[in-house]
């Protein structure tokens, strides 16, 4: 079986993640959407690893997972800090970027 189907699946998942980031207002859900995008990328890499007959794709996936773990820890801490001061996890409420 060619990796095409896996790639299509990964593309669909990635797109759903992108849309999720853009339309969900709960910061946690948006963050999960980001994770979904990472997972989609991982899937593509593992599929390519099989198709090309090398393990490098799997190694890269492994590293992505490690980085994602670190990212999630810090990201969630930030969300908690924001929640503590603003009593909300809505990303719309955090429009402090605007003066």
């Amino acid at each position, binding site marked *: 079986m060619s990796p095409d189907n896996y790639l299509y699946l990964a593309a669909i998942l990635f797109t759903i993640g992108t849309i999720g980031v853009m339309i969900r207002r709960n910061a*946690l859900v948006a963050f*999960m959407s980001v994770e*979904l995008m990472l997972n989609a990328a991982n899937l593509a890499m593992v599929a390519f690893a099989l198709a090309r007959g090398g393990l490098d794709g799997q190694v890269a996936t492994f590293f992505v997972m490690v980085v994602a773990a670190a990212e999630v820890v810090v990201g969630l801490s930030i969300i908690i800090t924001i929640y503590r001061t603003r009593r909300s996890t809505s990303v719309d409420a955090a429009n402090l970027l605007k003066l």
Partner: protein
Amino acid sequence: MIPLVTGQEVTFWIVAPLMVLGALGLLFLRKAVYAALSMAFVMVNLAVLYASLNAMFLTFVQIIVYTGAIMMLFLFVLMLVGVDTPDSVVETLKGQKVAAWLAGAGMLGLIVFGIGGSLAGGPQVGLDEANAAHGGNVESLAALIFGRHVFVFELTSALLITAAVGAMVLGQHARVRPKPTQRDLAEKRMREYAEDGVHPGTLPNSGVIARHNGIAVPALLPDGTVSEASVSQALAMRGVILDSPALSRTTAEAFEAIEGARAEEDES
């Protein structure tokens, strides 16, 4: 040549629609907890796909790290910040939803027809040879990670340490003003009473009636009505507090009896 239907294909066609459904749940489920659960579902399914793609090590890492650790962390945080605030359906940004879907469609097109289209095709080589080099998938991966990529691996350790320290720093609750003493609290209470008429005393306890002393039973005021302040707000929101008319009925009966007795006394 008739293409053989392999186990890999079967797995794919079962798992892939489920994954897409789970991912769509992320978009449409209003409660964050449900979204998190559907996300966990996607991840477990992804682990299955990894297994079908000959990536046994990643299968377990996916389940243990992603589903087990990361998603559970999400759930913990969800519980910390409150599960009771669903996303509002009213879109505050004008045209954001439409634009987001359009952009998503564009992204899909870009990936599929642009990048994907240029790479698609070609036979699968398979991993048997690569795995066999060190006697198995895990061993071969280990050889790569601790061999060619050992420097990156060491870097990730630094990254994880940094992330852990960062999380602790962010999680630390720095006190910006001195801790109020008992005297401050008392003064504040009296001030609030003077300015806003807030009752300075303690809130009424729940369950003063002898028959019910549970925390879900509101206290009764002298006139027989229920004191909302005596039960937890969270319980009130969930609607699990005891029905108030049933509670106040006894008082009402007692009042009626007293009134009746008075009326008789007056007549006589």
